[in-house]
């Protein structure tokens, strides 16, 4: 897989938002992805194509619907490239710590 395609696809906040939405609920149609989002249908289609070309989104047909799925493999490969396997546990601990602290701060406010 072309790493440039993956990084270019991830560089855009609208495309990251679409990935976030698929992470929250996998297997959505174009129509579902367009709901409650400040983007035209054409723009969403364009972004989905870029994500699909980068292999960050996989699609399956269900009847007449085309469902979109987050494909985390290229992101996993990025992690494999720069994260040593022995560092993973420590990194997970730091990430959890950050999440725990920042979410409790949020509750206090």
């Amino acid at each position, binding site marked *: 897989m072309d790493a440039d395609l993956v990084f270019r696809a991830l560089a855009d906040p609208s495309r990251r938002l679409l990935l976030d939405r698929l992470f929250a609920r996998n297997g959505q149609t174009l129509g579902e992805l367009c709901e409650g989002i400040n983007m035209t249908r054409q723009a969403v289609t364009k972004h989905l194509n870029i994500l699909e070309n980068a*292999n960050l989104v996989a699609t399956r047909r269900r009847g007449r619907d085309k469902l979109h799925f987050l494909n985390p493999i290229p992101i996993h490969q990025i992690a494999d490239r720069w994260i040593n396997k022995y560092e993973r546990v420590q990194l997970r601990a730091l990430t959890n710590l950050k999440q725990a602290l920042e979410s409790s701060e949020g509750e206090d406010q």
Partner: protein
Amino acid sequence: MTNEAKAASPAPISTTTTGEQFIYTIYIRTTAEKLFAALTQPEFTAAYWGGVTHDTTWKPGSPWALKLPDGRTADAGEVIEYDPPRRIVVSWHHQLSPELNAEGVSRCVIELEPFGESVKLTVVHSLDRHESKFLQAVSTGWPAILSSLKSLLETGEPIAPPKPVLDKK
């Protein structure tokens, strides 16, 4: 995508509205035959999947099990389809954790599709249930396993073998 439609046309994967599924695709520079062998033969799976092997004859209708290196059966089910070098479908029921076992039988579809000088490998794992802990567990396993498989086929070396899926001791 026409390739997509072609791959899905013989027997579309049933995406249920009642359940949940994960799809993984990865492009591997190899032939469909080599990839199919790597997916099914124990000497390959053990190398990229931390010692895990399939215990089955691969005959449709026959039992299928995923064995951990220590001999325990992590998952068990049945071969539903076996179509080398294109497609494998198994029913997949987790055996080790009672909580995940109680979620019932999942379905795993593996598809291979030539794509230029590579093969597009698609793994679809689905279960008729929402917020499945089993699929969550599986979803952390597949990307590591498939990346390791890709590395093995393209470079001859697996990525530091990931721990077997759901191998909780």
